[in-house]
């Protein structure tokens, strides 16, 4: 076991075993052989912070609760510095002492449970099958069914339900097709010479139709059947006839012509 005074030399290896800041404080009080009712806050606060530093150096994950206790100890330290007036009378350490005493009782009971656990985990129950056993479903002790098991069971059932009923794939028939849209657009461009694309798109309320028209435009541009022009950003996009005359077959097959 390390002495608390040895902290400057190196961090004690037992650091990781403290289950919380109260546990660490109790350890320091025992090591210093001081009374829990009369804790030398100055010395204990310094040693506590020394432990924290050592824990950080060891890269142990110093939880927030350890830092919170450090802040409390600092607060107590500052309070102890103030001259005590007779009217106040209260010892600023009182709450800390009470919490340490309560925690010490917990540790005591935990240590009893530890010893009991050590012995009792060596007990084995018999595995003699009763005559009625075999092929029966597991049953639960109703007394032991709690909200958590109920919630877990519900989630399991719903998960099983979802697995047995996968959502249907939404394969809707296409209401617009690119070929038709290409043919319409192309003939319009040939007829009108200049077609304002954005105005056309805005006049359509069906998003599916808009998407179809955009794809059709891109196809026509790719095939050089039309050219698209935009003078400046966000301005209207004008379509005009391109340098390649598309025949109906090319339009139908999106440029792929046999032979």
């Amino acid at each position, binding site marked *: 076991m390390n002495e608390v005074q040895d902290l400057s030399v190196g961090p004690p290896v037992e650091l990781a075993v403290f289950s919380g800041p109260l546990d660490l404080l109790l350890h320091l009080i025992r090591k210093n052989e001081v009374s829990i009712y009369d804790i030398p806050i100055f010395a204990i606060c310094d040693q506590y912070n020394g432990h924290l530093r050592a824990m950080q150096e060891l890269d142990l994950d110093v939880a*927030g609760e350890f830092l919170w206790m450090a802040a409390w100890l600092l607060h107590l330290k500052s309070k102890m510095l103030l001259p005590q007036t007779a009217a106040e009378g209260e010892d600023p350490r009182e709450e800390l002492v009470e919490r340490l005493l309560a925690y010490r009782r917990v540790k005591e009971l935990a240590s009893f449970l530890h010893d009991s656990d050590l012995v009792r985990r060596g007990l*084995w*129950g*018999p*595995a*003699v*099958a*009763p*005559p*009625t056993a075999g092929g029966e*479903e*597991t*049953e*639960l*002790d*109703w*007394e032991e*069914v*709690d*909200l*958590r*098991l*109920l*919630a*877990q*069971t*519900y*989630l*399991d*059932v*719903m998960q*099983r*339900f979802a697995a*047995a009923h996968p959502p249907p794939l939404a394969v809707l028939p296409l209401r617009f097709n690119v070929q038709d849209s290409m043919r319409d657009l192309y003939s319009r461009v040939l007829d009108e010479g200049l077609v304002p694309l954005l105005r056309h798109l805005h006049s359509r309320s069906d998003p599916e139709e808009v998407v179809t028209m955009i794809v059709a435009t891109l196809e026509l541009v790719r095939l050089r059947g039309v050219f698209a022009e935009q003078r400046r950003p966000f301005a209207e996009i004008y379509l005009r006839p391109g340098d390649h005359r598309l025949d109906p077959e090319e339009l139908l097959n999106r440029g792929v012509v046999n032979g």
Partner: protein
Amino acid sequence: MDRAELTAALEAMLVTAGAPLSAAAAAEALGEPTLGAAEVGEVLEAIARAWDREDSGLRAEKVADGWRCVTPAQLDSYLRALHGVTARQRLSQPALEVLAIVAHRQPVTLPEINFIRGANSASVLRTLLERRLLRLAGRKKVVGKPFLYRTSKEFLIHFGLERAEDLPDPEELLKEESAAID
């Protein structure tokens, strides 16, 4: 290891084995170089003779691959009766599932429960009604007017709740505990 401890260890092995215990396996587990399968086999036979009394609830019977611990056949009726008694205080997995569905979706009808579970739950539902964990709560205004089911007062008392609305959302209950780890 003296004879008393050896007997105790072999008895413990017999009752916890769950399958026939061979003298060789027992000897190996004892780990005493001086105790071979033959010696262990003799002690097992002695145990079988000692158990074969009128006031004993255990028998050791020799089967092909070792010794098996069983209860005497003439006690079967008591053991079956015991199973029936304890079954009353227990809840089957299907019953727990129906209870969970009603608790978290109430009010709910039998067809809805059947649909979710993918199994007929009529008899389970009846048992839960008899045990007063569920109650009838009117009829649903759809074709056939099926009965609606809700959890009972006794259900709430068991789970320490005042109202059915206090039932935690199952996802949140299991999430909350892990989320609180900060």
